[in-house]
């Protein structure tokens, strides 16, 4: 039971993050932050609208989730005693975001990007933007964005190495989900894919071309194994359909034989 539940959670996790959370975000009453800032001009009001289109808004993470403070008490909303943090300084941004994204934070700090923090290197918001944070994808690695600081060449190599893997993971995940809803025990495969996906995600903030390439190759080997396991099931199902076709044809033949035989008695 418990293991099954874990599997269900693994498989449905992406859905959970999307749909029901969006619903709860809508149900939540507006915070005092938005009540005031929503009607403010320019610098003080703009973040509200940007935030509304973000993955954070979709998942019900509101202003106070990052900036602290009391979203229910207008008078003390921005009081440091209530944990209000305000906007972080440039070099504090990674740690600011890293409170909720510790894994990515670690990966970022270890990368060339992170090592250049404070020395002109990019922070989280350089690529992800600040209030309108959208769901991370490989599309964030693009010519326009990367060429602000350096040539796109190496970034493109990295993206190309990763995009194939990304597509494969999405594809395999879809096939597993399909099997799951037709009664196939996909627990093992679901877990294997989960760990491969995690391993893959740690690559997202790595900017070492060779490491990305090597890791991608290793991850693809793991995906090959999953592909093979899925193929076994596919073959089995194809075999069942052939046998089923024969069985149905056989039943029809019997019906015809019985009918003809009955006719000889008419």
């Amino acid at each position, binding site marked *: 039971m418990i293991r099954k539940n874990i599997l269900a959670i693994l498989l449905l996790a992406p859905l959970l993050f999307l749909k029901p959370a969006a619903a709860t975000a809508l149900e939540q009453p507006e915070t005092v932050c938005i009540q005031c800032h929503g009607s403010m001009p320019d610098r003080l009001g703009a973040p509200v609208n940007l935030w509304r289109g973000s993955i954070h808004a979709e998942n019900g993470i509101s202003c106070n989730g990052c900036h602290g403070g009391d979203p229910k008490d207008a008078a003390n909303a921005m009081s440091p005693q209530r944990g209000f943090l305000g906007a972080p300084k440039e070099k504090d941004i990674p740690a600011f975001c890293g409170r909720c994204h510790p894994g990515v934070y670690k990966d970022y700090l270890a990368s060339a990007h992170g090592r250049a923090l404070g020395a002109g290197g990019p922070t989280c918001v350089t690529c992800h933007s600040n209030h309108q944070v959208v769901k991370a994808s490989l599309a964030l690695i693009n010519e326009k964005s990367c060429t602000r600081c350096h040539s796109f060449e190496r970034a493109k190599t990295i993206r190309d190495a990763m995009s194939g893997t990304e597509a494969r993971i999405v594809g395999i995940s879809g096939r597993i989900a399909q099997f799951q809803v037709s009664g196939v025990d996909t627990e093992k495969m679901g877990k294997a894919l989960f760990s491969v996906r995690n391993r893959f995600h740690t690559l997202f903030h790595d900017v070492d071309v060779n490491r990305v390439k090597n890791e991608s190759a290793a991850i693809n080997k793991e995906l090959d194994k999953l592909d093979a396991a899925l193929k076994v099931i596919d073959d089995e199902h194809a075999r069942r359909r052939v046998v089923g076709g024969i*069985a149905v044809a*056989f039943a029809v033949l019997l019906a015809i034989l019985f009918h003809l035989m009955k006719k000889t008695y008419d």
Partner: protein
Amino acid sequence: MENEGRRKFLGVCVAGCTVAAAAAAGYPVLRYLAPRSGQGGAAKLVIPAGELKEGDAKFFEFAGSSAVLIKTNSGQLVALSAVCTHLGCIVQWVKEKQQFLCPCHGGQFSTDGTVLGGPPPRPLAKIPFTVTEGNITIG
């Protein structure tokens, strides 16, 4: 008359098909009911030698059946099938007498499996084992 011949031909066809259908239906059921291989105890088992004191016996599942490992008072190790050769009950270790007693019909076996009394027709089967570095490997 023509009808007769046709009827006979169809009868043969139907009989053949019915037999085939019965076989086709029977096969899945038979496979479904067949005991699943690879169940029960492992074909190889490692027991730490320290687990067993002199004069004691340790019962365990081995290759889908019951077995027993004893260490005699003289320190000798013996592994035997624990299934009585009479009617298949599981023998018990009588420590005081240093012998096996089958509770079903009073069969008695010595530490090396030979029949000491009662109805059992054959001695208990011996199971090969090796001792390496304080580990007893059965099978």
